[in-house]
């Protein structure tokens, strides 16, 4: 044994000592610094699972919603939004399950929420319903036309907008957006088949606009008024004002 040790070169002995020290340091550091439960179930601390489980819950999960709102869930599960969880739109609502009356989930009433998915993006799949929200009925909120629990795909326009889309889009931006086309234009059914032979009517008298805009008209207060007798009496209104996008504020 002694001969064997003497036969080892001095360098190797010294390096071996260094190596042994390094290995011992490594083992000591490893055993002190690595948490005991590391690697039990994966490349992480097993107790991390419990730590995460202890985090405060925010979402209830849609299984809970069915308990009370089975009528809405029944509609939703058949519709295009069947893969969306209730809390995607209504927000984290575990508090609502604990105190239904005190905490009400949100209802999305602004126009910025639905475009998160439905705003036009070239990367979205063809056929996925998309809009350009700046021009898609900008003065209306989404839920006034679409039922989010049972949205239906867009249909081919059958009314005036089928041909006069640009005017309809313009009007939708205007103060007149809520007035139907037929309020001012009378078009018979033949107009759809032979439009130029059956032109729709236009208002021909000042009194027509006066129904809302005359000083004594029976209409909401914030509508601009004029004195029918003094306000340019020789002209019909639309000769100066564009009714599809009236400029008056």
């Amino acid at each position, binding site marked *: 044994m002694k001969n064997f040790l003497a036969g080892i070169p001095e*360098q190797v002995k010294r390096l071996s000592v260094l190596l042994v020290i390094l290995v011992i340091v490594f083992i000591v*550091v490893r055993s002190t610094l690595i948490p005991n439960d590391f690697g039990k179930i994966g490349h992480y601390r097993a107790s991390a699972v419990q730590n995460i489980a202890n985090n405060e819950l925010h979402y209830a999960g849609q299984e809970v919603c069915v308990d009370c709102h089975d009528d809405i869930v029944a509609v939703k599960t058949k519709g295009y939004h069947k893969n969306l969880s209730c809390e995607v739109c209504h927000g984290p609502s575990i508090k609502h399950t604990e105190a239904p009356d005190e905490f009400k989930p949100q209802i999305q009433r602004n126009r910025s929420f639905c475009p998160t998915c439905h705003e036009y993006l070239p990367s979205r799949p063809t056929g996925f319903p998309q809009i350009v929200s700046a021009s898609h009925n900008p003065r209306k909120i989404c839920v006034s036309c679409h039922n989010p629990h049972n949205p239906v795909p867009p249909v081919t326009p059958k009314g005036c907008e089928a041909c006069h889309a640009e005017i309809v889009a313009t009007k939708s931006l205007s103060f007149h957006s809520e007035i139907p086309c037929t309020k001012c234009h009378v078009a018979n059914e033949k107009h759809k088949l032979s439009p130029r032979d059956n032109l729709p009517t236009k208002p021909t008298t000042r009194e027509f606009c006066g129904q809302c805009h005359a000083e004594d008209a029976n209409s909401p207060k914030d509508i601009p008024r004029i004195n029918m007798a003094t306000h340019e009496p020789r002209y019909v209104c639309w000769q100066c004002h564009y009714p599809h996008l009236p400029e008056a504020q």
Partner: protein
Amino acid sequence: MEELVQHLTPILKEITGYIFPNEVELHWGILIVLYPYLTGLVAGAFILASLVKVFNVKELQPTYRIAMLTALAFLIVAPLPLLGHLGHPEKSYEIFLTPNTTSAMAMFGFVYAWYLMAVLLLEIWFDYRRDIILWASKEKGIKKWIHKIVSLFSKDISEKAIRFDKKSVKIVTIIGIPSAFLLHGYVGFIFGSIKANPWWSSVLMPIVFLFSAIVSGIALVLIIYMVVTPLRSKPIQMDCLDKLASYLFYVMIIDFSLEALDFIHRIYESEESIKILSELVSGKLFVSLVVIQLLMGMLIPLASIAATKIFKAPSELKKMVYFIAAILVEIGIFTTRWNIVIGGQLFSKSLRGLTVYKMTFFGLEGFLAAIGILILPFIILFILMRLLPPWEEARNP
């Protein structure tokens, strides 16, 4: 939120085509360019040094120890860009404690530690041991103690022990060559194995990285040798310089052929990414790839070294040509890393658009930090050269 996205505004203006939102900003910046560059210099310098020991290239003897110290200085700095990029350097030891064998990136620590401790330090130690003992015996004060500690208080300088040292150096070098290949091949593998990125995904990547590493390492040692020797008022040995330049020339030809092979292979395969890649190469990467990497960093040095060989240029002219060629090569290899790291992130995964890289000046990942990390190895090298003088005349005190 406003502040978070504010710096994106100038980038958004330069985006072309369609890109996904998470591709606007590059995640790997200048520091990740430095990382393969620095490790490449290490591997290259080491492989140059091993030519002396394994293949017995006598002419390169004066550069052997310089190359070893250069490799060590750059290896010490090599992980810094990663630490700077990842943040939390205080947590870096954790990859050693709980090794994740399924992550190539997490295994870097072991590749690095193996190369540093089992190869570089061991080889330097065996090579310097006798000299350190002799130096320590004649010195006083702190330097004596540093040398004593570095020699591990070894005292044996008998004929037998020195023979053992020489044998060990040879064995370590033989282990070291595949280790150097592993170190830099690994860096290439990190990029080459990303199959979702057509600019990176290539089995040739580790090999191309390796040969460009050898090119940059040889050029670096050549530069250091040509700068340090006159500073010490010693003559530059022309046969050593010629040999260095020859090796540089041959390895560059291999490197050039490999890159050309990669290029031809891509064009012939002509996968769906070819259109966006050609747009990238002819547009945003034109200057750094075609002008700097290919023309300045490859063709001009190759042609100028070839010219000195063909026309048998006088040694003063040769020195100048070699020096300029080596500097151009260094710039060229840096842009090689740039083109791989930055280029690979400039195009969208949709293959329909390009973004742009804006480097910051200050900050942990900025230009100044990068310059600092590039200068640091030279400072370390200076200290190493003071502690362990690599010159022939220092060997026999």
